[in-house]
């Protein structure tokens, strides 16, 4: 009840912080959101079987009746996860059609058709130009929409992974008979039997268990098998041993259980609905692009409307004013930009895929670059997800074993006699075996039959002593027995002692060897002597003390410690013919000789510490969030650098200063280890405080719901959060994160489906690559957008001047489309290939709300500086073309009305008379000239956009070859348009005299020089006024 109250409080605070705009409806929504973050509230594990029978109306022996089962099936629905509601494809498609700039372009297209309608009503023979233009705009929208839809369709469905986990059949007792039924038909109250190898068909309250072990790693992230029994061992349903969870695997043993939850109500089902219930947050780049679209659309609409009003008040006919409006909108909207951004992102995605980062959601490419917090799962992500021998203790010394992925150099001293004995025990007292037929496989990659610890020991001994199977053959096993002690009733394997009796491989020695391993303190209880330097010595106080010190030390490292002992049975008492009996225990199990300790850990991947350090230097906070024990988590965190060597937690300080934890000033502790239990009692403010005040945080023993809370807490700090994980338990957090990163090899399908990115090699270091690429693409997108926005002014000015000064139209709408969707496309993509200007991995991640993709300096510099210079150059070309044909600049002003009239003897400044069509052709020549002028200056623009701070010559003019491909494409497309298609009247282009191609070149040079000056002052006075205003 406590946590529910608490959550209510949290809920309230969260809501109230939203301020007065909060409506009732919003509150309701928040409450719902809060609900899914609740822990699964089960109390069935605390009930006795009688209460259970009563609660579920069933009978433990006879099971449900078929009729009752059918009834329940109707009530609760089938025992399967319900797939998420899908947005119909057509809706998705339509959404693409109206998003972004599309709505503006549709508006333009419709205006075109309206304009034609008005024209038609006046004069049925009027030209179809406006209809074509409208059609072209519509086609542009539809094509970009289809492109975007195609990208969206690529992303996969999250539910697919969950549905794969559903077991097919279940053995159920109904009507007092055992039946095999499809698992989907299970209902609450059914009595189910499971055995090793089965997937558990629903959430089960175990009623009886015989050596049952389950693998809960997909749920909790713990890699060790866990014993299951029928006693309630913990208040938390996730921790107690008498519940088996839907879709986890029963590794060995058998059990009978009562179904307590089915389908979506199971714990996994709740996680699944949690994952799909978590809204997919907009990626930072999507927010940025939206912001940018808003800016551009705002400019377009306000300019359009302003000039519409100006035009109308200048006594232009409404029809003309509408056409101006269309022109202004088309000029303002960078039609090709969104497609370019997509292509740039997918290029980066491809590059990342080569480095084993598979990006599922294109926009996630950039997200990693702006990530400021990485919440990493431990098992399988930071660690190898494989128990490995880390330390040994014998002869009163601790030895370090090599835990790297291949175990290649074991450096500890192997000359001691104690080691020989220890090695023998490790080799013999082990039931794990290599699967046959793997002779050529390296030892560490061989598949082993057996549990994680035994596997570790088997591999360890195989590496060090050689052929284990052969040794075992030579030391034939006489008998093997697990010893259960009544003091330790729980089924934990840690409290199990494992004992076996072997013949020795020494032909002269006909004694039997008893070897035993298990929990160290229990092994020690059974021993009376200890082996030091190969000699058996009585176990006195001091050696027991040494043992305890070592045990605590190893335990403190978060390692699982095993003790080993042996005993040579005297040949007289136990002759070769002696028959050992497990049940009768006709052999000694005490007064053995203690040999040594061995500690196991799931070691960190070797690449992780380096990667964590790189993340640190890149200003990214790495937080560990794991379902594992705090001690283990902290040890791993220390070894990978998530908690750095010199920082302490509050507990550490308390221990050092010998004071109570409460007395420690929380600010002094750089690091913090927070457990799920603590987290449960925390308000979101407390969590915020922890996240804000500690730079090194480990969350241990967390549930999937808590992972979600942690991610949300990070997001409240305005951080862009990346979550890495591999298990089902991580999937809600993966989904909630700004970018979810799943492990490709170890990851469950659910995790991979919820993630935006998959690390194909499970290598945490790939994240660093991803960060680098993400930051680079952000910078390069800035450049692309700056490049694209610049020419908007050069496209827009003609319309404004046309309206105000009455010049013949300098550039047509169709021609603008040729720039936006023709010459400019490849160059703007080429900017995505630009190398980083400086060491982007030593900078802080960008601030989500402050470092915008399109900021004020970018817009101002592009629009009001370079853009204006471009329009200037283009106008000079335009005036030149007209002047040389007979219309001198001064003459053009105010000429528009006559120019557009159906007058076939319009005088020019030389007294020559022009027909309407001749003027039209001249106008198209003007379009072409303007187009070419913009194209030429865009080449300069492209070159200056290569860098934002450095000089082009520092960056290298020729390092990015793609830029030159872009420039070539620009020129070639322009040449084709002018000379190849110049005779196609619908395109409004003409064959331009060659000399006009060069008129704008000085202006292009001017742009370059101007930008170099800008960059020079930025470099000269970093942080200064110029830098603040001119650096975008």
């Amino acid at each position, binding site marked *: 009840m406590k946590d529910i109250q608490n959550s209510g409080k949290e809920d309230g*605070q969260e809501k109230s912080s939203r301020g007065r705009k*909060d409506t009732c409806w919003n509150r309701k929504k928040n409450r719902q959101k809060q609900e899914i973050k609740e822990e699964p509230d089960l109390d069935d594990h605390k009930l006795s079987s009688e209460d259970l029978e009563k609660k579920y109306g069933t009978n433990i022996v006879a099971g449900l009746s078929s009729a009752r089962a059918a009834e329940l099936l109707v009530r609760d629905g089938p025992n399967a996860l319900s797939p998420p509601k899908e947005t119909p494809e057509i809706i998705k498609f339509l959404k693409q059609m109206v998003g*972004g700039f599309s709505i503006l372009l549709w508006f333009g297209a419709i205006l075109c058709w309206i304009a034609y309608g008005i024209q038609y009503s006046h004069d049925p023979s009027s030209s179809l130009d406006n209809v074509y233009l409208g059609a072209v705009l519509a086609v542009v929208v539809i094509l970009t929409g289809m492109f975007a839809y195609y990208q969206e369709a690529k992303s996969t469905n999250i539910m697919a992974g969950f549905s794969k986990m559903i077991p097919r059949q279940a053995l159920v007792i109904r009507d007092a008979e055992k039946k095999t039924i499809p698992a989907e038909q299970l209902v609450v109250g059914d009595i189910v039997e499971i055995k090793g190898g089965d997937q558990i068909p629903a959430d089960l309250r175990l009623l009886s268990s015989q050596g049952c072990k389950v693998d809960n790693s997909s749920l909790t992230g713990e890699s060790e098998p866990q014993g299951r029994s029928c006693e309630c061992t913990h208040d938390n349903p996730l921790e107690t041993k008498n519940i088996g969870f839907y879709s986890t695997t029963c590794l060995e043993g058998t059990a009978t259980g009562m179904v307590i939850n089915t389908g979506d109500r199971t714990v996994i089902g709740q996680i699944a609905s949690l994952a799909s219930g978590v809204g997919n947050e907009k990626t930072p780049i999507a927010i940025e692009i939206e912001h940018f679209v808003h800016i551009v659309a705002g400019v377009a609409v306000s300019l359009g409307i302003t000039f519409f009003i100006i035009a109308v008040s200048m006594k232009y006919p409404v029809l003309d004013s509408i056409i101006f409006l269309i022109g202004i909108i088309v000029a303002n909207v960078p039609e090709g930009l969104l497609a370019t951004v997509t292509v740039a992102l997918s290029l980066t995605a491809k590059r990342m895929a080569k480095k084993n980062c598979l990006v599922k959601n294109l926009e996630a490419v950039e997200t990693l670059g702006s990530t400021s917090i990485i919440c990493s799962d431990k098992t399988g992500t930071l660690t190898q997800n494989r128990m490995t021998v880390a330390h040994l203790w014998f002869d009163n010394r601790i030895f370090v074993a090599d835990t790297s992925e291949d175990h290649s150099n074991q450096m500890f001293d192997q000359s001691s006699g104690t080691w020989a004995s220890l090695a023998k025990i490790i080799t013999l007292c082990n039931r794990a075996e290599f699967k046959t037929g793997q002779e050529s496989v390296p030892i560490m990659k061989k598949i082993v039959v057996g549990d994680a610890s035994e596997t570790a020991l088997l591999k360890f001994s195989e590496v060090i002593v050689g052929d284990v199977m052969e040794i075992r053959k030579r030391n034939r096993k006489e008998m093997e027995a697990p010893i259960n002690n009544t003091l330790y009733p729980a089924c934990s394997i840690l409290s199990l002692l494992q004992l076996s009796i072997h013949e020795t491989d020494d032909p002269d020695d006909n004694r039997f060897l008893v070897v035993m391993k298990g929990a160290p303190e229990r092994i020690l209880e059974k021993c009376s002597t200890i082996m030091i330097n190969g000699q058996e010595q009585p176990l006195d106080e001091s050696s027991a003390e040494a043992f305890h010190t070592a045990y605590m030390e190893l335990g403190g490292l978060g390692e699982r410690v095993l003790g080993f002992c042996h005993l040579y049975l005297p040949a007289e008492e136990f002759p070769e013919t002696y028959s050992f009996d497990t049940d009768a225990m006709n052999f000694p199990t005490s007064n053995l000789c203690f040999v040594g300790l061995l500690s196991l850990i799931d070691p960190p991947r070797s690449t992780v510490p380096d990667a964590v350090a790189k993340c640190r230097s890149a200003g990214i906070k790495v937080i560990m969030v794991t379902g594992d024990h705090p001690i283990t988590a902290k040890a791993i965190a220390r070894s990978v650098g998530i908690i750095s060597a010199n920082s302490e937690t509050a507990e550490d300080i308390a221990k050092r200063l010998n004071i109570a934890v409460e007395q420690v000033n929380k600010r002094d502790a750089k690091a913090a280890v927070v457990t799920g239990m603590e987290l449960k009692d925390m308000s979101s403010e407390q969590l915020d405080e922890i996240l804000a005040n500690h730079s090194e945080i480990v969350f241990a023993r967390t549930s999937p719901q808590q992972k979600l809370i942690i991610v949300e807490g990070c997001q409240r700090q305005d951080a862009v959060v990346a979550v890495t994980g591999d298990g089902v338990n991580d999937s809600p957090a993966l989904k909630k994160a700004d970018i979810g990163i799943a492990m490709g090899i170890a990851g469950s399908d659910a995790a991979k489906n919820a993630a935006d990115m998959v690390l194909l090699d499970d290598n945490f270091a790939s994240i660093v690559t991803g960060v680098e690429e993400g930051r680079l693409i952000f910078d390069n997108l800035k450049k692309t957008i700056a490049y694209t926005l610049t020419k908007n002014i050069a496209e827009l000015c003609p319309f404004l001047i046309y309206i105000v000064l009455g010049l013949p139209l300098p550039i047509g709408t169709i021609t603008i489309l040729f720039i936006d969707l023709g010459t400019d496309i490849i160059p703007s993509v080429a900017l995505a290939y630009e190398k980083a200007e400086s060491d982007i991995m030593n900078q802080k991640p960008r601030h989500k709300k402050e470092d915008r993709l399109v900021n004020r300096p970018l817009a101002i510099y592009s629009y009001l500086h370079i853009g204006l210079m471009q329009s200037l150059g283009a106008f*000079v070309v335009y005036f030149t073309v007209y002047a040389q044909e007979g219309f001198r600049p001064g003459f053009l002003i105010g000429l528009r009305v006559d120019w557009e009239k*159906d007058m076939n003897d319009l*005088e020019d400044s030389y*007294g020559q008379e022009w027909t309407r069509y001749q003027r039209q052709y001249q106008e198209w020549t003007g379009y072409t000239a303007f187009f070419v002028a913009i194209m030429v200056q865009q080449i300069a623009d492209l070159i200056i956009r290569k860098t934002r701070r450095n000089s082009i010559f520092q960056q290298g003019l020729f390092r990015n070859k793609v830029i030159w491909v872009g420039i070539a494409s620009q020129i070639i497309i322009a040449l084709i348009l002018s000379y190849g298609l110049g005779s196609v009247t619908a395109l409004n282009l003409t064959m331009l005299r060659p000399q006009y191609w060069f008129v704008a070149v000085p202006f292009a040079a001017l742009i370059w020089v101007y930008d170099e000056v800008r960059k020079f002052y930025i470099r000269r006075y970093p942080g200064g006024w110029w830098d603040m205003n001119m650096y975008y």
Partner: protein
Amino acid sequence: MRRQLRSRRAPTLPHGYHYRLDDQDEVNQNYLADEEEEAEEEARMMGVPNLEKEEEEDLVEEEKEEKEVVQNEEEEGQGQPMGNTWWQKLQLINEYLWDPEQRRSLALTGLILILYFLFYASLAAVITICMYTLLLAISPYMPTFSERVKPPGIMIRPFAHSLNFNFNVSEPDTWQHYVISLNGFLQGYNDSLQEEMNVDCPPGQYFLQDGDEDEDKKACQFKRSFLKNCSGLEDPTFGYSTGRPCILLKMNRIVGFRPELGDPVKVSCKVQTGDENDIRSINYYPESASFDLRYYPYYGKLTHVNYTSPLVAMHFTDVVKNQAVPVQCQLKGKSIINDVINDRFVGRVIFTLNIET
């Protein structure tokens, strides 16, 4: 671009979740408290000037505060001279201006304005220089290129918006405007005017005038009387009153244009589509139906001020009445093209006559 517009799925309730109703009060309390806090925050926000625009507002605000202070002072120490308030105000503004923080941002704003002014001034200078050089480089007498305006287009008079001549002979209102238009057009061709302004140059050859480009050129006479029956001198209604309309045809002026090889450009009209005999007969004036070579070349309006475009009048003496007759008049000559598909006025003109009786 992928846009995430996913529907947020309503989450299923975790099993056994209860929520307490009395939480609601707590919630509301928090809610109110926060509201107050937020209002405070907003107030604080308002007080912080962040842009130059708000500085002015600040100034105003401070002035207001100042007024309040003054009022208080007045209430306390009565009888203070009014001049003091102005002085204080001035002082305040003075202080504001000298406040290092404010001054810095003011200075920055000023600096930005100055820099932009300089930047745009230099851009304006650049374009002025460009335009100036452009005008210097281009001859005012002779266009650099004239391939766009060649081959010449033609135009007819009277022309009023449309090329359809619809009129009723018996209703002068329907054709009067043609007559007025023609009369107006031919004013410049009056014999007296032509004789006074222009020279009578020999027909059949180019009227070439050597000499410098900027020298004024003489123009050849084209007298209205050359148009005979269509001159409007004998028949002031140009035949419209009798259903025998005159239509004048004018070739577009092009600087330096010479009909090649000494052949004058001829005009010929015929029915465009339909029965060829619908026109029956046309009288051309001048009778040669051509533009005499002496009117070429044209030297441009700057030097060739009095140049009078030669005309050819077509007198449709016997057109079929009460039906639309599409007429196409074409120029014929060596350097003439009259079949451009897109341009229906290059070397040809198409109009319809629909004369009702």
